[in-house]
């Protein structure tokens, strides 16, 4: 008799009808049973790095959105933010598992999420930005999901079948995330003077980090040449068009801001982050680090 993980073994001994809710949260490999063979000719170090980039983006924004739970203004919005976070967490789990298995150094999704330090994270800095008030959260989620949807929609055609499958699933989810953020942007922007001001202030915090989303990275360019990755420099036009459409309906004029630059040409994709990431990781990783042998 073989078990894929400890939970199945535990579940196995329980009589039918017995509550085993505590074992149902599932920390097993989300790619278990998926054919993860790397296509011929694809550089495994690059592929692992790319999966880590897209996985870290989703993981950190998911963690940020979760901070709203118990604090949102309406139960409906709390559920929405938690559901969006859950979708992103699912995407992160698959992408980190893919990164770990392609890397081949024995690191699983948990090792990657809980036992890397700041400089080893490869997310864009936007994903680690604190959520601030709901105005900033709306701006942040709109920018992030508009960019990510454009990216994923192209990644569906990736030469890596696992990335293509993860993207095809995620496109459907992120479409709902973008709709949610866009609707709130219209509601706040075209609401009262005060709500419009809060949204505008939110955009003023988020927009400085936008250039990084379209900067491209050497890993990404090499993989894009072989049809595995999406060249993010090509996404800007679609992004601006969607954002413009929302701003028009929201009667919102985006603030002029100074752009956050790179550090000697390096940014989030190279492990150079804002001061916010350390605090986020301290909270996210503390339990796993204080008891690395713990099982759920």
């Amino acid at each position, binding site marked *: *008799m*073989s*078990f*894929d993980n400890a*939970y*199945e073994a535990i*579940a*196995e001994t*329980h009589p*039918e009808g017995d509550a*085993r809710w505590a074992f*149902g*949260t*599932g*920390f*097993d490999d*989300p*790619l278990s*049973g*998926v054919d993860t063979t790397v296509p011929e000719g694809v550089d495994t170090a690059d592929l692992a790095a790319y999966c880590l980039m897209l996985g870290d983006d989703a993981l950190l924004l998911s963690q940020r959105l979760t901070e709203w739970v118990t604090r949102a203004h309406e139960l*409906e919005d709390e*559920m*929405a933010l*938690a*559901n*969006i976070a*859950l*979708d*992103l*967490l*699912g*995407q992160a*789990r*698959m992408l980190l598992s893919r990164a770990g298995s392609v890397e081949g150094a024995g690191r699983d999704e948990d090792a990657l999420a809980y036992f890397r330090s700041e400089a080893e994270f490869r997310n864009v800095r936007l994903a680690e930005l604190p959520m601030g008030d709901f105005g900033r959260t709306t701006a942040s989620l709109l920018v992030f999901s508009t960019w990510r949807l454009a990216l994923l*929609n192209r990644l*569906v055609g990736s030469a890596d*079948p*696992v990335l*293509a*499958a*993860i993207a*095809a*699933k*995620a*496109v*459907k*989810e992120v*479409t*709902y995330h*973008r*709709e*949610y953020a*866009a*609707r709130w942007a*219209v509601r706040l922007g075209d609401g009262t003077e005060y709500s419009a001001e809060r949204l505008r202030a939110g955009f003023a915090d988020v927009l400085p980090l936008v250039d990084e989303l379209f900067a491209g990275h050497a890993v990404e360019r090499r993989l894009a040449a072989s049809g595995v990755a999406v060249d993010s420099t090509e996404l800007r036009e679609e992004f601006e*068009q*969607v954002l413009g*459409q*929302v701003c028009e*309906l929201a009667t919102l004029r985006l603030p002029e801001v100074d752009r956050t630059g790179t550090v000697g040409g390096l940014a989030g994709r190279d492990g150079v982050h804002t001061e916010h990431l350390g605090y986020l990781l301290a909270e996210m990783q503390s339990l796993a680090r204080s008891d690395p042998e713990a099982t759920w």
Partner: protein
Amino acid sequence: MVTRTESDRTVAAEVAASVTDPELPMLTLADLGVLREVVVTGVGAVVVTITPTYSGCPALAEMRAELHHRLTRAGYDDVRIRTELSPPWSSSWITERGRRKLAEHGIHPPDDRAGPPTASGGPVPLTLGPPRRTVHCPRCDSAATERTSEFSATACKALYRCLDCREPFEYFKEI
């Protein structure tokens, strides 16, 4: 031996198809369209293929455990559960029976003509207007309903309320 494998296949398929979704217990995995394939590979050996509804759906691990549990109890000593991501699950895969059972339990089944916008190769259009769905209250059948949230207690549902009987209800959304 042939007969044994034949009956094995039927039993395994029936057992797997009877496993229910932990969060929508009125639906079996077959009703939900999550169960892709049941293959008996030898005496007592079975491979079940399932697909997740949403990337982060926490019910998937429970479904796998339950399939394993039930098939082992039915006498299979070599049970493997495969996860297949592609093609991605769609709410249009919910069977007619599944739709009927959802409605009987006060959950409005998905309206697959209403979208979501499917990937046509081009950019995914922003809809922003009210959803293109006709939603009747599952309790009083009134068409005067409004959406309160596109997200609900599980990833797969939206939240509505009826403006006539004033009851809230859930809507299984299209993906």
